[in-house]
């Protein structure tokens, strides 16, 4: 049995939920410890839902949501948020798209007005579309094309692991697809996916529940009701034979590799999924973790290593199908085969011999710190609760996560490790084309 373990603390953020007549789901989580608020609106549409021939469209559309709306000229949204002392952004994920601001709490009503206005209707004009296609192309250049390891592995591994368009295509999009997008496409996308019934609003921080509820009804209550579209099933069968591929990155000076295995459905089988989340940390969190100790310190076959769930790194905001990923950078001339073989060996050892005394408890304590730290910012809380509401109808799960992580057992982690077999693995190797 494990030795004395650090008591895993929990948060007790209050949660108020309700649904407006138009189908908009709302989550409030008040906390008056600092005069700031976080506001998040999450739409249930992401990269996986974009049509064939329109790669990158979900992300391009995210840009268009900032280009003016019913009562707001282009640039007004930015000016009103920042002119109230706040910051804002949005991001496109595989399964959702979020829009958010964090502000001094005296700007609550303004933030609600701004989000409601674009939920009623963004200004979709030819000029703004062409402008944002250019901006998105520069974004892709700066993050992918002009830098080493651009898009590795989140853009390069899915096409190895998956076969269907929704799961396998490039979510940043091809320049051809982006350039041929039309205002009509955008209007269709908005009508279909940006329905009040397909969205969740979360507000956290320095708010009074009754007052915030009244303001939300005032601003969002008359957003025309539209139901959520049916979400298609994106399921794909698990791999039955190893898949492996490689590509040359002309800018990369050193080799790199990423491998991934499918994991249980994060939503319908959360209890089955959670041990994999813990396993990723047992393997890679810090100098005392299994694979860092072995691959970095002992074998010196890799120079850096990461392990996580979901292609974008957050284990609690993804739906099926998803994966546990490991990625590593290698020294000059490093041997990728050997790295993958060693990973297999260490997974075998974990599955066979189990964890060492205290290994699990200390990993869980550190995971609790990370979870708590992420929710200290009001916006982190609003965003996570919005996604938990959307995908599970359970925003209060945020308070439970440190405890649930703490309840994962040695045996469950061991059993999870036993499923990460080479024949279920998809991997991709970056061949250094830029070696000096």
């Amino acid at each position, binding site marked *: 049995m494990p030795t004395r373990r650090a008591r895993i603390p929990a948060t007790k953020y209050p949660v108020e939920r309700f649904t407006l007549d138009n189908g908009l789901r709302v989550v409030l989580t008040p906390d008056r410890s600092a005069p700031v608020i976080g506001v998040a609106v999450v739409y249930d549409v992401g990269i996986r839902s974009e049509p064939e021939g329109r790669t990158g469209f979900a992300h391009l559309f995210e840009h268009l949501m900032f280009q003016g709306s*019913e009562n707001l000229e282009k640039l007004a949204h930015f000016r009103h948020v920042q002119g109230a002392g706040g910051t804002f952004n949005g991001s496109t994920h595989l399964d959702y798209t979020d829009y958010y601001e964090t502000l*001094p709490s005296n700007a609550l009503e303004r933030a609600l007005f701004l989000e409601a206005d674009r939920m009623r209707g963004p*200004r979709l004009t030819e000029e703004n579309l062409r402008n944002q296609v250019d901006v998105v192309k*520069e974004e892709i250049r700066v993050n992918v094309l*002009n830098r080493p390891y651009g898009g590795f592995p989140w853009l390069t591994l899915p096409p190895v692991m998956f076969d269907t368009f929704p799961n396998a295509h490039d979510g940043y999009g091809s320049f051809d697809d982006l350039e041929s997008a039309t205002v009509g496409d955008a209007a269709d996308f908005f009508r279909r996916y940006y329905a009040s019934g397909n969205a969740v609003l979360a507000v956290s921080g320095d708010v009074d529940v009754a007052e915030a509820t009244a303001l939300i009804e005032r601003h969002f209550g008359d957003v025309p009701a539209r139901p959520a579209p049916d979400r298609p099933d994106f399921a794909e069968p698990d791999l039955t034979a190893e898949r492996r591929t490689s590509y040359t990155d002309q800018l990369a000076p050193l080799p790199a590799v990423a491998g991934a295995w499918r994991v249980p459905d994060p939503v319908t089988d959360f209890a089955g999924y959670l041990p994999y989340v813990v396993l990723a940390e047992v393997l890679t969190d810090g100098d*005392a973790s299994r694979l860092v100790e072995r691959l970095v*310190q002992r074998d010196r076959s890799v120079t850096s290593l990461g392990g996580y769930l979901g292609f974008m790194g957050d284990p609690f905001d993804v739906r099926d199908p998803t994966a546990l990923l490991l990625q590593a950078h290698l020294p000059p001339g490093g041997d990728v085969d050997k790295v993958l073989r060693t990973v297999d060996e260490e997974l075998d050892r974990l599955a066979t011999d189990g964890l060492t005394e205290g290994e699990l408890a200390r990993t869980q*304590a550190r995971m609790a710190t990370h979870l708590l730290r992420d929710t200290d910012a009001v916006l982190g809380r609003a965003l996570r609760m919005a996604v938990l509401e959307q995908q599970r109808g359970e925003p209060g799960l945020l308070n439970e996560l440190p405890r649930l992580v703490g309840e994962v057992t040695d045996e469950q982690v061991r059993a999870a490790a036993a499923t990460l077999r080479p024949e279920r693995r998809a991997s991709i190797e970056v061949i250094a084309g830029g070696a000096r």
Partner: protein
Amino acid sequence: MSATVETGTRPLPALGPNRRLKLPKQAERTLGNGLTVIAVRRSAIPLVELRLWMPFGRTHLARGGMLAQTLLSGTETHTATQLAAELQKVGGGLSAGIDPDRLMLSGAGLVTGLDRMLELLADVLTGATYPADWVETERDRLVDRIQVAQSQPAHLARTALLKRIYGRHPYAVQTPEPDQVRAVKPPVLRRLHAERVHPAGAVLVLVGDVQPERALDAAERALSGWTGEGQPAELPPAPPLEPGPLLLVDRPGSVQSSLRIALPAVPRTHPDHAALQLANLVFGGYFSSRWVENIREDKGYTYGPHSLVEHSVAGSVLVAAAEVATEVTAPALLETMYELGRLAALPPKPDELEQARQYALGTLQLGASTQAGLASLTSAYAGNGLRLDFLAEHAARLAAATVDDVAAAAARYLAPALAVTVVLGDAERVADSLATLTPVRTEST
């Protein structure tokens, strides 16, 4: 076609009354060994943040880099793995970083583990051993990391800019060469540690769910045994900017150009600082700035342009940065110079200034609303001789700055004639058009 929705007439809601900036409860003590400890209470989550700022100016670049890389590699009582595991047990972790001003140890953990984290911190400070095998591994890792950095356009542009701005000042080169790193051996690290890792002049910041006085007691218990005399290693003041030809650094095959523009700036305590910060916001310091609206939202030349006043111990500088499509490199520079000139020569509009002011004040509130934000802010201030009270003073100066003050600051600091400009990109494709705007000197990377 246009699918514009009909424009309505809903009025923008007014802002509620401002809530005053409230400074958290804090306490400070200087220990007998010269270490200053500052503890700040923010109790929203049961964690504590730790920052230890140690003055480290004028350190040999490769040795300093390796010291940061290997400081946590083991002590007389713990191997590196044991150290990491012991920290993990209390939900904690530590990491070390270095820049030309300081060596910094940062971490966070469960507040119930504060005593243990401080004990382990003391163990590292007083007993780091730099074991040979570990040092060797970390040396290779650092070399690889430098190689990867040297393939990143942003790093290369920054390197060229620093060299151009600082000339012979210690700030000019901030990344060692791989060969210099390879030459660093454990005895050198042990000696450097003995000479420089001292409590005198260092500041430890603890922020979290703590009673400040008790946190100071805990730090005193754990760290009183850390001794050693500080060697003053004063940095000379950073040299003034010397405008000259645009420096074009060739990176053949680039699909973007990295534009970097340095302008003069002043330290946080200078009477012009608040006005300069506001002028910078109006120019390019936030999304609703003239520069972003021009080169991104109007012309689509770039994704994320931004400008920032950077403060270091020996001086401050304003840096504007944008990655722009290769084919629009010269037009982007033209628009940049236009926006700088327009702000330097004409006063900002009152509503523009109000918007920037609200942003500056609001982000002070936001930055102080988390444990991690407070810890980083407190530590950055302390490293420059300031305390958290400065937050309130600065807010008052931001609130008081007039259009005339901001116009004067813009004229004094943002004039295009003062700019030092570096462009990293495909010289063959951008040199001629840049030369139509300004004299250009080309270098290879």
